[in-house]
């Protein structure tokens, strides 16, 4: 453990003003009141770097790429300066035996205090044999690392909800972190990949307040996942006016109308893309003219097709025609029975005489 964070930063030539500005921006992004920016700056400045262990399972490294290939290196870079990243297979120089030693050393030294970050889902099929590191299954590793963790951050949709590996037919039996670990605080930071600032926001919150941020029912920080893409989408007015792009190259698409009909999953996707945007605030999928895929939602891969609009059924016409035929058949059958019954009644009519009026 080293001295307060601010000393490290100042040594790197990052001034207090930069830090203050960063905290103000972060607070704004986390929808905290402006005064929290100042509090955050004070707390973070005095914070000590926590140990962080990052375990990769069934993943594509996209989440790590997203975190580290950010266009404003200092902001996210700073976060890596705030933490002591003791184990990250992709980023660490060590390999093999040394890497494993580093992992076990960190786990032992900081037992009960380290933050565990997981990306990738955990395969349970054939006893977890689909993904092993150093001869041990992912599920084993996760259980061991989770035992000593203060909290776990499930980075990306795979770790949070199973993600693409869990897509039907889920050959590896992939599950999410929360399916295995039940006794530790877990924060899900879904997204494929997740927005970098969400990660830094969660860390900053943890460092500032010593606790995890407020989470929703899917364990996602509400500051970032509290509203849908659709709620905050700048194209929302077109949805309300019923102005929709019908194809990707029509008049509506050129005028930037709503992409709902082109399959945008914005209305059912909880994420902050519409406000934080991507690549340092450059743009985001909808702004670039493509609907939201819903990547931060569970099972987005199996949600009925990226280009299929949300409220449109799969294939109703065929069903409708078949139903009409079946209905007609039923109707005609009843009608034959009815007419037969009525004719029989009329044929067997017994003419009433006066005597028949008496009971």
């Amino acid at each position, binding site marked *: 453990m080293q001295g307060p964070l601010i000393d490290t930063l*100042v040594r790197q030539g*990052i*001034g*207090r*003003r*930069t830090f*203050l*500005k*960063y905290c*103000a*921006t972060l*607070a*704004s*992004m986390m*929808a905290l*009141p*402006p*005064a929290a920016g*100042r509090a955050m700056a004070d707390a973070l400045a005095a914070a000590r770097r926590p140990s962080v262990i990052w375990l990769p399972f069934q993943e594509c490294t996209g989440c790590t790429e997203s975190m580290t290939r950010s*266009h*404003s290196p*200092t*902001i996210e870079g700073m976060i890596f300066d705030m933490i002591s990243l003791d184990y990250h297979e992709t980023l660490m120089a060590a390999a093999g035996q040394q890497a494993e030693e580093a992992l076990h050393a960190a786990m032992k030294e900081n037992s009960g205090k380290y933050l565990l970050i997981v990306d990738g889902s955990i395969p349970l099929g054939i006893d977890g044999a689909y993904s092993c590191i150093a001869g041990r299954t992912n599920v084993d590793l996760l259980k061991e690392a989770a035992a000593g963790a203060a909290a776990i951050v499930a980075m990306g949709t795979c770790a949070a909800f199973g993600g693409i590996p869990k897509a039907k037919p889920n050959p590896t039996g992939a599950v999410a972190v929360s399916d295995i670990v039940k006794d530790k605080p877990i924060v899900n930071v879904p997204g494929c990949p997740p927005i970098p600032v969400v990660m830094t926001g969660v860390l900053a919150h943890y460092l500032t307040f010593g606790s995890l941020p407020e989470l929703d029912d899917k364990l996602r920080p509400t500051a970032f996942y509290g509203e849908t893409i659709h709620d905050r989408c*700048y*194209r929302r*007015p077109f949805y309300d006016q019923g102005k929709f792009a019908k194809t990707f190259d029509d008049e509506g698409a*050129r*005028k*930037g109308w709503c992409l709902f009909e082109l399959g945008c999953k914005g209305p059912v996707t909880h994420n902050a893309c519409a*406000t934080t945007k991507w690549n*340092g*605030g*450059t743009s985001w999928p909808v702004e670039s*003219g493509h609907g939201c895929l819903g990547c931060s939602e569970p099972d987005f891969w199996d949600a009925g097709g990226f280009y299929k609009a949300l409220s449109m059924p799969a294939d109703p016409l065929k069903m409708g025609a078949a139903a009409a035929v079946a209905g007609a058949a039923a109707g005609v059958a009843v009608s034959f029975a009815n007419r037969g019954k009525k004719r029989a009644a009329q044929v067997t009519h017994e003419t009433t005489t006066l005597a028949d009026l008496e009971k």
Partner: protein
Amino acid sequence: MPPELIPIQIAVEPSGNARPLLHEVAELLKRLLETGEPSTIDLSALPLNPADLDWLQTRLGEGEVSCQVQANGESTLDETACRGVWWVTHRNERGSVVAQFIEVAFVPELLKAHPQDIEAGREQLEVLISEL
């Protein structure tokens, strides 16, 4: 094709949400005068579209002071025509806006030097003098 040539333009009408904000700013100014307590409004936390922001900025006008801070990208802190009301824009290193605030203060927080930084400056100056 360079991105700026892609002809996507979103014409947005002001939503009318900016109007009540002016009343809020007036209240905050009153508080500043009465208690000396500064306050900040986070503009990105409010449902304002670009046209609203333009409207607001035009109404508040331009004042005499205009500051720039180079800190991990440029930040501009401009006093509006209403003195004590500052329009604060934080940009990242690529120049994109990352946060916007209206700060109601005698001097915006960010402009003030931190005592520890001043201390460091003084020490640096002393070294400099001793080396003369």
